[in-house]
């Protein structure tokens, strides 16, 4: 009671200020359309970062309406608020410790029962809650009727019906937030109560711990979380309680280890009472859209064929539209570099002109030409994700992923890897257990990204002419084969231990929202641009400098050549001259550099190379190139996501050994066969 009174006083005090700011936290279970609401509220006025010390995305943003300023924070999507995952801890810690003025709880109107579970938890925390019934259109499509006023009467909190993908309900939501904040709304929530079976235990626990509970936590909530067996709260209270009190508490908790099921059951019983009058379900009517689509899309045979078809279309769209754009940009860049060096000749020192034309435009600029391909790829995948299809793809692929100790959830990040390995590694965040996430991160760089495929697209025809297409397919298959073998080996031999749980909701299908897809693409592209503008740019300049100095502009006498000649013995066992070894080295900056470097070292390499190296050596080179250590940006992402140098170096070492090993093997075996 005291706490509530304090919040009200604070509210009245801040109202006196001219331009009032309301701090609003957005919560909801996964797949309820929370991001769409957040994007609709904040538009481009949002900041994406990480939660301090966590690899979980944090989105904040704001909007103003009249004299009112709203600060939104988008809390991670969670099914409950028990400390099962880092997301759940973040969500509840924010509400407990940062004290938002209002919490907006988003539920899916088409799955009212399940998605209200989070509300049952939120109502026990010290912040007023506004409920959003989102996806009213999807509910109607599935034949489910929800009456917001009836639900509001039952819950005693504002209930706002929304259809965020169509932009409906945003004004009403802001109105409700203000009304709760300034006290105009008679906020009087009906909180869920625990089953009688555990009521006495709960009261006993509260009596024991009340005086010791740290001030940021409500005592009754802490007692309930103890009874639920929440690891984090157990640890907090073990530290806070005197030893003899803790002994009592600990004994009691041991006797009620099964309480979690009863507590969850009681919450669902409460939800049942709340929605009884408000939700009308179809008896046995015509099947909903989702059920009809899933008869095909989750079928073991048809679903697999459908997935292959979908992937075919994804790649066809990406390359049919993206490749011409990429070549166009590439051509433009070459001309730009020429114009630049011609125009600046004599104006600036020679080395500076070369730096601008070859180092900046030829290095970092080259990477940027892949932007169209990435944009299309991410847009198509974002579209599929936003319809709800990707969960079906994860379900279909689960049985294949199982052999590697992964499950279906690793499919999406790995698929992203075909565009660029960096988002693949960031995308592994959706996997809950560390073991499966790290394994996915280890395997992701084996997915051939657009940049590596571009190198193959240029080099394979030079060496293999008509057969180049088959060589390219073979190389992709080889990469995926190595990925599978490495996954199985790590699963069986290295990372023994618990398999990660595969528990995944299949959301109802719905029409995707252009804005959500747009923001998804923009954020992925932005991450890519930042990398291109920093890491790739810096290393491009360094590599350029190594290839330019000490004898101005003579690459054959440069530091790079010196390093390359040092690698001659290694090159010899692969049948490769040092120039190709240098090309490999520079691919560490960005995979496309292989081509750029060959251009610098040989000039017209298209005509020269076939005469210089044998077909087995050429094939070996392409294999090494495909399996070689990932680019700098990917390595940086691996380090950032695992926060482990050991794992990053392991990843690098493995790729190095595998790629060189495979290259040597192919060259030696091929030479033997041909010479034999």
């Amino acid at each position, binding site marked *: 009671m005291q706490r509530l009174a304090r919040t009200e006083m604070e509210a009245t005090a801040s109202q006196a200020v001219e331009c009032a700011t309301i701090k609003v936290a957005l919560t909801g279970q996964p797949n309820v359309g929370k991001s769409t609401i957040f994007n609709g509220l904040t538009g481009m006025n949002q900041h994406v970062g990480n939660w301090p010390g966590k690899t979980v995305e944090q989105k904040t943003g704001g909007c103003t309406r009249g004299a009112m300023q709203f600060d939104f924070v988008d809390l991670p999507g969670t*099914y*409950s608020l*028990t400390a*099962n995952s880092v997301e759940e801890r973040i969500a509840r810690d924010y509400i407990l410790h940062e004290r938002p003025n209002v919490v907006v709880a988003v539920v899916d109107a*088409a*799955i*009212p*029962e*399940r*998605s209200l*579970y989070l509300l049952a938890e939120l109502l026990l925390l010290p912040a007023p809650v506004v409920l959003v019934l989102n996806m009213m259109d999807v509910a109607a499509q599935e034949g*489910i009727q929800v009456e917001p006023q009836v639900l509001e009467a039952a819950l005693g909190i504002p209930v706002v019906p929304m259809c965020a993908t169509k932009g409906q309900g945003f004004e009403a939501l802001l109105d409700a937030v203000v009304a709760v904040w300034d006290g105009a709304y008679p906020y009087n929530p009906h909180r869920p109560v625990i089953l009688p079976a555990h009521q006495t235990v709960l009261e006993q626990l509260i009596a024991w711990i009340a005086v010791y509970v740290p001030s940021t936590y409500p005592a009754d909530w802490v007692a309930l979380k103890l009874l*639920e*067996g929440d*690891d984090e709260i157990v640890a907090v209270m073990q530290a806070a309680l005197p030893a003899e009190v803790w002994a009592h508490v600990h004994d009691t908790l041991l006797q009620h280890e099964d309480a*979690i*099921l*009863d*507590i*969850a*059951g009681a919450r*669902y*019983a409460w939800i*049942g009472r709340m929605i009884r009058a408000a939700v009308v379900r179809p*008896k*046995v009517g015509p099947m909903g859209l*989702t059920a009809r689509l*899933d008869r095909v899309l*989750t079928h*073991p045979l048809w679903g697999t064929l459908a997935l292959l078809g979908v992937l075919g279309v994804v790649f066809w769209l990406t390359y049919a539209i993206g490749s011409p754009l990429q070549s166009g940009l590439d051509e433009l860049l070459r001309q730009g570099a020429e114009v630049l060096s011609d125009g600046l000749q004599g104006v600036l020192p020679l080395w500076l002109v070369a730096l601008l034309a070859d180092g900046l435009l030829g290095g970092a600029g080259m990477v940027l030409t892949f932007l169209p391909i990435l944009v299309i790829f991410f847009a198509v995948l974002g579209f599929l994700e936003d319809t709800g299809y990707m*969960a079906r793809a*994860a*379900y279909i692929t*689960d*049985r294949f992923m*199982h052999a590697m100790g992964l*499950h*279906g959830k690793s499919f999406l990040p790995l698929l992203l890897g075909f565009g660029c390995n960096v988002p693949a590694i960031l995308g592994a965040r959706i996997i809950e257990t560390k073991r499966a996430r790290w394994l996915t991160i280890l395997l992701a760089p084996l997915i051939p990204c657009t940049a590596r495929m571009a190198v193959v697209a240029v080099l394979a025809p030079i060496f293999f002419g008509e057969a180049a297409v088959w060589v390219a397919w073979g190389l992709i298959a080889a990469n995926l084969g190595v990925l599978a073998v490495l996954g199985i080996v790590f699963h069986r031999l290295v990372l023994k231990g618990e*398999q990660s*749980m*595969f*528990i*995944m*909701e*299949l959301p*109802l299908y719905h029409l995707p929202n252009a804005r959500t897809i747009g923001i998804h693409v923009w954020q992925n592209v932005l991450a890519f641009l930042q990398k291109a503008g920093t890491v790739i740019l810096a290393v491009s300049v360094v590599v350029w400098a190594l290839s330019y100095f000490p004898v101005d502009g003579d690459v054959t006498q440069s530091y790079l050549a010196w390093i390359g000649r040092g690698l001659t013995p290694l090159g010899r066992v692969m049948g490769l001259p040092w120039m190709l070894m240098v090309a490999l080295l520079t691919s560490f900056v960005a995979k496309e550099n292989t081509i750029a470097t060959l251009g610098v070292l040989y000039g017209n390499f298209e005509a020269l190379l076939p005469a210089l190296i044998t077909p087995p050596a050429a094939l070996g080179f392409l294999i090494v190139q495909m399996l070689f250590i990932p680019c700098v940006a990917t390595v940086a992402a691996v380090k950032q996501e695992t926060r482990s140098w050991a794992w990053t170096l392991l990843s690098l070492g493995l790729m190095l050994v595998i790629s060189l090993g495979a290259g040597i093997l192919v060259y030696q075996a091929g030479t033997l066969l041909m010479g034999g």
Partner: protein
Amino acid sequence: MVPLTALQPGQIGLVHQLRGGHRFVSRLAALGFTPGAPVTVTRNHGVGPLIVAVRGAQVALGRGEASHVLVFREEAGDATIGQD
């Protein structure tokens, strides 16, 4: 009492018990697998994960996970009742 994996597509089971670590129980409980809750099997092909409907949502469960959910098999015909 049978594991969820023993149910054929279209069959309904009432959750009786969850066998597993605390984390597993807690996660499934939040998704609505609480004692007495009806679970309808949508997909079960003998290998690979299952799809079940629980509390109005479709949930994919790995075979291992599903085998740790013990249910009472409901007779066919009661399919339309089953709300708690």
